């Protein structure tokens, strides 16, 4: 009989192999799915994974890779710190929304003044907004032991309602002819998170994402705080003996994740999205969970996983317009990726072994 046998050490080979196999398995399962939907699987896979990068219109899609990847990477880096320490913040979508609201709020408050300090203030406000929103589950967990998973998720729905309220009320464009949504920050130079080099898709959010990757890498590999985060996740008891204060760890991980998600929201609302509107959030906060796991909670891995996930977003849009592939198919495709990843991950810690049935 085939049995699982625990490995004495996690397999280094499988740690790197798992995401690759998961992506391949998802492509295979995705092909079956696309065939079911009456599309040629080979064409669909090529449209999603190849065309955005190498087709004749790739010059248009490549910048999108940075635009879509930046918020994913930024949020996922924050989430990965918590996930490593066993702190499950799954409400990044809410922190993203609140960061966008506080960031845009500061920008709109200064309108129409043109000054150099408006944008930096918006960045600070966005980070603070996301941080504060993540502090709610953090403080509740520290003070009362409340489950952070449920609280952070409930706050996503609260944030969505707040977003609707803001775009219909307080932040509504007074010159918007009664349409919902705020003033377009793209038309307000001091607040606009514009492309740094025209046509590259490079904006301040992309810079922040790269900085976050580097900082997280240094933190996890070269700093005692990163060591404590890893220790807390792998051996909570040992961590306590080593002098790690669990409450401080919880607040740090949730706060950092919240601030980064808030930043992502702020860069998005001031740049690619342009305005606060009811349908501003598109699920980056949830997709970032997949990115964090696909990247094995490692900063460099997250960078690669974020790029791949951004690719599926862009390729999905192309497949939607060219092949008529439903948007939901891409959502399902991304969900499958996490499934396969978790399933194949068993090989990191266990190996298959033939075992004869023995009489007890």
């Amino acid at each position: 009989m085939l049995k699982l046998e625990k490995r004495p050490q996690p397999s280094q080979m499988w740690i790197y192999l798992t995401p690759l196999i998961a992506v391949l398995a998802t492509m295979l399962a995705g092909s079956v799915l696309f065939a079911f939907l009456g599309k040629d699987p080979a064409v669909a896979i090529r449209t999603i994974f190849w065309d955005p990068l190498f087709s004749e219109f790739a010059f248009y899609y490549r910048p999108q890779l940075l635009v879509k990847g930046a918020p994913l990477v930024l949020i996922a880096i924050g989430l990965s710190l918590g996930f490593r320490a066993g702190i499950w913040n799954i409400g990044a979508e809410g922190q993203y929304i609140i960061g966008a609201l506080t960031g845009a709020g500061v920008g709109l408050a200064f309108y129409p003044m043109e000054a150099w300090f408006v944008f930096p203030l918006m960045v600070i406000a966005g980070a603070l907004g996301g941080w504060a929103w993540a502090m709610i589950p953090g403080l509740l967990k520290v003070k009362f032991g409340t489950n952070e998973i449920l609280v952070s998720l409930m706050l996503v729905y609260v944030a969505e309602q707040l977003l609707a309220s803001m775009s219909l009320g307080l932040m509504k464009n007074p010159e918007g002819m009664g349409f919902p949504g705020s003033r377009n920050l793209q038309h307000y130079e001091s607040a606009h998170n514009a492309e740094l080099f025209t046509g590259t898709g490079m904006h301040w959010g992309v810079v922040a994402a790269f900085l976050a990757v580097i900082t997280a890498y240094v933190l996890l590999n070269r700093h005692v705080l990163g060591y404590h985060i890893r220790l807390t996740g792998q051996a909570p008891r040992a961590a306590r003996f080593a002098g790690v204060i669990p409450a401080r760890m919880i607040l740090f991980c949730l706060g950092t994740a919240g601030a980064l998600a808030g930043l992502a929201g702020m860069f998005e609302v001031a740049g690619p999205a342009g305005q606060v509107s009811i349908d501003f959030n598109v699920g980056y906060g949830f997709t970032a969970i997949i990115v964090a796991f696909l990247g094995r909670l490692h900063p460099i891995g997250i960078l690669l996983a974020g790029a791949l996930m951004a690719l599926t977003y862009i390729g999905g849009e192309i497949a939607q317009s060219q092949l008529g592939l439903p948007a939901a198919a891409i959502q399902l495709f991304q969900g499958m990726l996490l499934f396969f990843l978790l399933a194949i991950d068993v090989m990191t810690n266990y190996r298959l072994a033939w075992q004869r049935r023995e009489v007890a």
Partner: protein
Amino acid sequence: MDFGSISPVLLLASLMVAATPLLLAATGELVVERSGVLNLGVEGMMITGAICGFATAVNTGSPLLGMAAAAGGGAALSLLFALLTQFALANQVASGLSLTLFGLGLSALMGQGYQGIKPPPFPEINIPLLSDLPFVGGILFSQDLMVYLGLLICGAIWVMLKYTRAGLVLRAVGENHDAAHALGYNVVMIRIAAIMFGGACAGLGGAYISLIRVPQWTEGMTAGIGWIALALVVFASWKPGRVLLGAYLFGGVTVIQLNLQAAGVAIPVEYLAMSPYLITILVLVIMSADRSRAPGSLGRPFHASS
């Protein structure tokens, strides 16, 4: 503002309707958690059940077949979770999350072309004699079948956990899986059965929303009810009786909130719509003081190493 337009009789009737999906999903999750497994995929299983039930009911014209399909769909999806956590020994939190993300995508895909359709009406049941009682009769005793089925399932689970051998075994597996294994119980199989029961219940709860409560299909229509059901299990300290109480309490909050919206209270609609989620958080905070009742093996992976 017009509070006079809120009728207490209708309020009670709609409270029972609003509470039923929560009751079904939370009872299912209660069984799963009592077996020591934390399945965070309730939302995904509910929405999958909602579309499975809706599509089947529309295509066959039978709402009862729809309900059966919803239970089947929810259970099938939960089987994926069971495979991940029981055989591949994956992290339960991550697996549950992936189940929700997957279920949301799957339901959106399956629901293409079902938007804006009205499902066949669900037959109401008039319990003879009782439903003729003045005032309360019409409310309590002539609801649809699922309201009673929800109550029945919840009651049956209470009896099973408290008075039967099967319930004792389930609790043993949840409290200490190593001890249960040593006693010769098949921990993995018992847990898979519990997970599938939870999936079927969540599916029923989802279909109740799409077939009876709303009734139509829109993407993401469960809107966090699955997550509230998870919170409800914590609120109930893993006890079926308190799940019932909690479900009716939350049903009441939802209904009052909707009625206040309709009555045109000075509070903006968005802030009223937040209230169920905020109250869930509040309740979680109050209940988290007492964590002694959680099943001992909750969320811990089991691997027989013999």
